[in-house]
Structure formats: C-alpha cells, structure tokens
C-alpha cells in the first residue's frame, strides 16, 4: 500500500513536471455560435463532406451499434480504458451545434475541443492534421447539416493517470506531427491523391500500424499490422500475409465491395470500412487502392505456398465437423464456393500468425453484407462448443497453411467473447 502511494506520488510529480513544461500547449475556449446562428448551407460542400465522412469512417466510431449515425456514445476500448465517442450532430448541448468552424478545424488539427479541453488521440487527429482546410470545411458543412440529436455521452472510464486530460498535451509534443503532406512529384496524381486520403482522413494506419506503449503509431513500422477491437488488421507493407500480392484492381474491388475472390471478405471493423467506401467515389477508392498497393510492391508474392494437406493427427470428430459444417461452402474445389466462401488456403485469417481473426469469424460469422448479396458466413457461436471451434480452427490451420500450428485458439475465443459480438 505504502509503496503504491509512493509510486503514485512519483507519477504525480512527474506529470506536474511535464505539465509545467508544456504549459504553452494550453488552448483557450472558442466562443460558441449564437443560439440562432447557423453556418450557411453550402450544398456542394455538404455533399463533398458526406463523401469525405465515408472515407474517414467517422460514423463507425461516432455511432453506437444500431444507433443513429453520428450521435456518438460508442464505447471505444483502448489499453488505457474505455473512451466514449462524442456526438457529432449539431445539437447545441450534447453535440457540436455551438461550434464555429474554427473550433471544428482546431479539433481536427490540434485535438482540442471548443472549450479548450485536450481530446484523446483515439480521435485520430494525428492523421487529420493532413486534411486540407477545404476538406475540413466540407466535413464541417456536412456534419452541421445533419439533424441535431440530443445524446448525452457517458464519461470516459480511463485508468489513472490517463483520465487526466492535460496529459494529452505531453503526448502531442512527443507524437503529433502537424506537418502537411507535400506531393511526391515522382509519383502519379492518383498515387498522391491516394496517399492524401490514406494518411489523412482515411487514417488507415490507425488500425494497420502497430502502436507503442503510449498508444502512438510506431513510425518505423508503418503499416506492419495492428490490432483493433481484438481483430488483427493485417500488414499492408511488404510483410503482407496475403496468399497473392494485392493488385490495384483487386484492392479497389475489395475496398468498394468488401470482397475479392483471391483475398476473401472484409470482416470485423473492416466490413464497416468497406461499407463506407462503397459510398465514396470510384476515383477516390481507386486512388486509395493505388497508394495501398504501392506499400507492398516489393513483397514476396506467394512467399507462403498454397496448400491443402489432410493433417495426419486430426481427430475423426473434427474432420466430421469440418466436412459437415465448413465444407458446405468452403468446398475444397479450389474455387469460390456458395456464399462467396473462399478456398481457405487463400484466407489471410488462416495464414496470419495468431488465430484471432479466424476464431472471431467462426464465432460471429460474416453478417455485414446480407442486404447487398455480398459474402456471408453463419455464426457458429453456440452451434459448436468452444472446444469444437478451437479444434476446427487448428484443423484448418494445419490443413490449409504451411505455417506453425496455433496455440492460442482457446484464449482468443475467451477474449472474443469478452469483447462481445462484432458485425
């Protein structure tokens, strides 16, 4: 107890020292809009902003499952505790209705709210610094044109000392790069447009780049793969685990539809991204695909050979379950099966180092595309026992990849259950 108190004391002194050092990061409140004041409706900016909001996936974090878009309140799990996303509708009391554009721009670029409070970098302003003033204007115009919905957001549940907002000022000194992106003249306009969207509003690195102990993206490991809400966001750089190297065409189709016959379905949080990108313009999706494909252009294609070898030590029970349940769609004819089921040797979930995504897909299925005729997989949670799901995952790994066996399937199932159902 005594030791813990001393430790807290030391931490507190340390924080105070940081605070004193960064007192200059204090930001004043920005005067609210008058009660009857509304930004002028600019139709072109509003529709442009709607497209940018789709590319930025704003609604994913700022909407509760089944809730009204942009009303916030979704619990965002972080290693430091739970953060609740804010209400982005123009309600004056609980949303951004009193925010002048200047306050919105400051939030996007500096991570400070209208009242001058530090915002946690779960809100990826470390990417939004790259957005142009014009695009921020469009986003603001779009959000302010939405119907105002009163929705009071629960208080964050963060561990000490992270519950102390001013600490974020120190984080920014260490990790926030406010420099804008200079176009790379040696690359095509499409590539540069893609880089602008990916590095900026699209904030792909927020999931696909691993984070350090303080929750910042590791700049030396850009796009080396990260973890979001328990799902593994696979690498986009030369360490891709995909069976085939991604081409621009394949990526563009995957991003716009959530599926490609050589790579499979976007599941977990990526399903929402694909849904949003289906609303973005064809040109922007292609630009994003162009840039993302370039990140892995020096990857060893097919570094991991495709395989299908029946594991010698598989129990008859797991073989029967695989044949009676999985093989109805994953029909082992080295072609896409019913429900757009992939030959499993092509699946990134089967080829990646841990079983996290595989067991999550088996538990929850793929349900996001039911209305659009896209890929589908039934949820096996409860239909199969946890032991059976773990055994099936291990069997699939042994049969369809040449990688070392997984040892974590049961732990991953327990974790997935704690985190609750995903779309």
């Amino acid at each position, binding site marked *: 107890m005594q030791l813990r108190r001393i430790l807290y004391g030391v931490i507190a002194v340390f924080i105070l020292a940081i605070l004193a050092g960064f007192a200059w990061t204090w930001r004043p409140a920005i005067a609210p809009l008058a009660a009857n004041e509304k930004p002028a409706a600019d139709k072109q900016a509003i529709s442009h902003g709607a497209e940018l909001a789709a590319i930025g996936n704003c609604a994913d974090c700022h909407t509760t499952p*089944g809730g009204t878009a942009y009303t916030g309140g979704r619990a965002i799990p972080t290693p430091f505790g739970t953060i609740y996303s804010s209400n982005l509708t123009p309600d004056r009391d609980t949303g951004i209705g009193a925010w002048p554009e200047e306050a919105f721009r400051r939030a996007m670029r500096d991570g400070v709210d209208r009242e001058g409070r530090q915002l946690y970098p779960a809100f990826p302003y470390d990417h939004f610094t790259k957005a142009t003033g014009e695009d921020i204007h469009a986003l603001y115009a779009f959000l302010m044109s939405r119907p105002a919905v009163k929705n009071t957001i629960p208080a964050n549940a963060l561990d000490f000392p992270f519950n102390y907002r001013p600490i974020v000022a120190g984080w920014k000194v260490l990790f926030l790069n406010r420099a804008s992106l200079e176009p790379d003249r040696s690359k095509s306009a499409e590539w540069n447009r893609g880089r602008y969207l990916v590095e900026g509003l699209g904030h792909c690195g927020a999931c696909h780049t691993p984070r350090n102990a303080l929750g910042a993206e590791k700049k030396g490991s850009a796009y080396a793969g990260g973890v979001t809400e328990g799902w593994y966001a696979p690498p986009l750089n030369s360490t891709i685990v995909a069976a085939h190297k991604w081409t621009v065409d394949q990526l563009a189709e995957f991003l716009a539809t959530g599926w490609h016959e050589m790579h499979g379905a976007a599941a977990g949080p990526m399903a929402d991204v694909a849904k949003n990108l289906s609303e973005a313009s064809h040109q922007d999706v292609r630009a994003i695909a162009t840039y993302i494909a370039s990140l892995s252009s020096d990857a060893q294609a097919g570094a991991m050979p495709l395989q299908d070898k029946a594991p010698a030590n598989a129990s*008859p*029970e797991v*073989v*029967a*379950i695989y*044949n*009676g*349940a999985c093989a*109805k*769609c994953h029909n082992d004819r080295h072609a896409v099966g*019913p*429900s757009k089921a992939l030959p499993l040797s092509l699946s990134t979930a089967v080829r990646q180092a841990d079983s996290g995504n595989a067991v999550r897909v088996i538990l929850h299925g793929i349900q996001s595309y*039911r209305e659009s005729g896209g890929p*589908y997989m*039934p949820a096996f949670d*409860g*239909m*199969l*026992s946890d032991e*059976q799901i773990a055994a099936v995952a291990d069997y699939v790994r042994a049969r369809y990849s040449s990688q070392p066996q997984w040892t974590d399937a049961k732990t991953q199932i327990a974790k997935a259950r704690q985190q609750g159902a995903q779309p």
Partner: protein
Amino acid sequence: MTIALKVNGKSHDISADPSTPLLYVLRNELGLHGPKFGCGLGQCGACTVHVDGRATFSCILPLAAIGNREITTTEGLMENGKPNKLQQAFIDEEAAQCGYCISGMVMRAQALLKVKPNPTEAEIRNHMRPNLCRCGTHAAILRAIRRAAAA
C-alpha cells in the same frame, strides 16, 4: 457409426456418417418434416431447430458436433397434440403464404420468447434476422410473434 440422439424428448440410435447434417437425419430417418431444407448453407433458416433450447441451423450442424444436447423440432412444441401458443398465433395471423419458412420462423421466435417473454419490437426484429421468408410475409410473422408475446 451409431450415434445417440435425443429428439423431442425421445432417444434414438442413428446409424449414419458423423458428418451428416442433423437436418437430413430429422427428415429422412425420423420422419420429422417440420424443419425444411432451404439453402443447405445456413443462409435462410428454414431448417431452424432448437439445440438445448437455442435456435440453430440444422442443415450445417453435423451429428458429430451435437454430443448429448437435446433437439426440439416444431413437432416437439405441440402441447397435448395441439399447436402451442406461438404456433396458434402464427395460424391466427395467417402468417404462412407458401409456408416453407414457417417452421424455422416458429422455432427461431420460440427461442426468444423462452428467455424473453415480452420482447421489444427491436429485440424481435434483431432476433429474427437470420430467418428469411421469400413470400414476404414478414409483417404477419412479426404480428404473430407479438400476439404470442402479449397473450
């Protein structure tokens, strides 16, 4: 291979390959024609039965996975040879058009009412999502579930 199955309260010894989907055994071996073969892929829900009270697609549930869990089909919901409250509500609301999905719909809905006798509209709709009706009688199906819940 012989596999012991408990269906609608009765025990059966089934001689079948352990990868055989439960649905095939229910219909072909046990003559229970309530559950239907729709897609055979766990997409439509026409095959829905209860496995230990939980609504489950029987077309993709291999015998090997069942263990000692108890199976209930729509035949097993009958009380004293008569439709139970929910089944009667489906009849009263004329929820069936071609009727192919109805057994699955009843089983899916019954699983909800068992744990939640008075579900909200949103809970009903969310719970029923896995089951499809191609005639489009969803509105009548929802009415039937509401009627059974209120009764």
